[in-house]
């Protein structure tokens, strides 16, 4: 259905339900939808499962969401960073669940959710702690782990430009998880630096086609 162009980030995140699974883009700060996360904190949804590459750093963005006690579980590849003290403290206090997923399997599991793949056999992690309890199969002499899709109720992503139909382009390595998460959630919300007229993006270079995007908001700081 047609994209909703939102006046501000609060409008963009309206209606996120308690208990939702929220995919949050970004790798470090590149591609991180900071304004959407801040708006989600104001919006108040709680008991969330957050899927993101990291588990927040410093006191802002995802770390601030965690600090407010809104997140029940984090699914990520790398929670432990030099300044991930908010997550670290919650984790050590037993106040937050953690599922660690190899970074490529995290991306591929979201892709599977977006692509209608029911499950896939993946060589990553075979024979390691992260495969414990998972189904294993040897295919062509190589051990594979059966991985299931990760689907979001909501995705919050950062992109560079949107057109008024909701087509998105990214910039450099800030692309990272955005295009994959955009395929994997029921409601996809994009924060962009600029909204341009429909027709202003080269159809050969659109990375996330409009079909995947539900709401777009231009950054207030842009």
């Amino acid at each position: 259905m047609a994209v909703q162009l939102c006046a501000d980030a609060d409008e963009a995140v309206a209606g996120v339900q308690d208990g939702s699974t929220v995919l949050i883009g970004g790798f470090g700060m590149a591609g991180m939808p900071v304004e959407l996360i801040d708006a989600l904190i104001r919006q108040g949804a709680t008991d969330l499962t957050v899927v993101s590459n990291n588990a927040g750093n410093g006191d802002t963005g995802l770390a601030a969401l965690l600090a407010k006690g809104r997140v029940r579980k984090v699914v990520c590849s790398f929670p432990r960073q030099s300044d991930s003290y908010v997550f670290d403290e919650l984790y050590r206090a037993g106040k937050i669940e953690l599922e660690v997923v190899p970074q490529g399997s995290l991306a591929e599991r979201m892709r599977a959710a977006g692509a209608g793949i029911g499950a896939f056999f993946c060589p990553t992690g075979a024979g390691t702690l992260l495969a414990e309890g998972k189904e294993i199969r040897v295919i062509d002499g190589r051990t594979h782990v059966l991985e299931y899709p990760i689907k979001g109720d909501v995705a919050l992503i950062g992109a560079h430009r949107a057109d008024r139909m909701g087509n998105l382009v990214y910039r450099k390595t800030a692309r990272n998880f955005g295009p994959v998460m955009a395929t994997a959630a029921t409601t996809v919300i994009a924060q962009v630096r600029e909204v341009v007229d429909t027709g202003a993006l080269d159809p050969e270079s659109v990375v996330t086609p409009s079909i995947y995007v539900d709401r777009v908001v231009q950054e207030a700081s842009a």
Partner: protein
Amino acid sequence: MTPDRPAGQTALGKHDIAARIARDIPHGAFVNLGIGQPTLVADHLPADAGVVLHTENGMLNMGPAAQGDAIDPDLTNAGKIPVTELPGAAYFHHADSFAMMRGGHLDICVLGAFQVSASGDLANWHTGAPDAIPAVGGAMDLAIGAKKVFVMMTLFTKTGAPKLVSECTYPLTGLACVDRVYTDLAVFDITPRGVVVRETFGPTVDDLAGRLDLPLIPAGD
């Protein structure tokens, strides 16, 4: 006038069926129109409907068929017919295109059919003739992909055999995948309760029940 149009009734021709389907496509929907008659639906979508057409060979926001100088061999639809692009189009490769479809991102897909069963099984790829060379194309992907699968067909074959049946006799394209069937004589919803007659074009529900070998539920029941 369709060959099976019963005398004295107001059965729809293929353009009328296409127009009827177009009326049920909501504003802003993302839609794939199958090869053949379903492509006629595009002619009945108002320009301001904001409907975005997907073609599975790798494009969103496909425009009308290309004419004259606008014909570009690099730009075709799934039927390999030259088409045009509309502002806001996007191109993508085949794996991404079918991921989009299989992942349930299209709102509606409109397909032709040899047969549809009461439980929504679809047969539209293979007549089952022993010497037929099998060829499926994207039919099976389309059948299971969209949020809603609409079928566009005549209700009876040229020889009068029903195409809405209790069980398909032709090889299946997909199981329990059809949501609604638009025909020259009526529109049917495939529901967990059974086949609901949404609307008829001439015959009564009882007329249809007499010619089809399956139970029909009148709309509103």
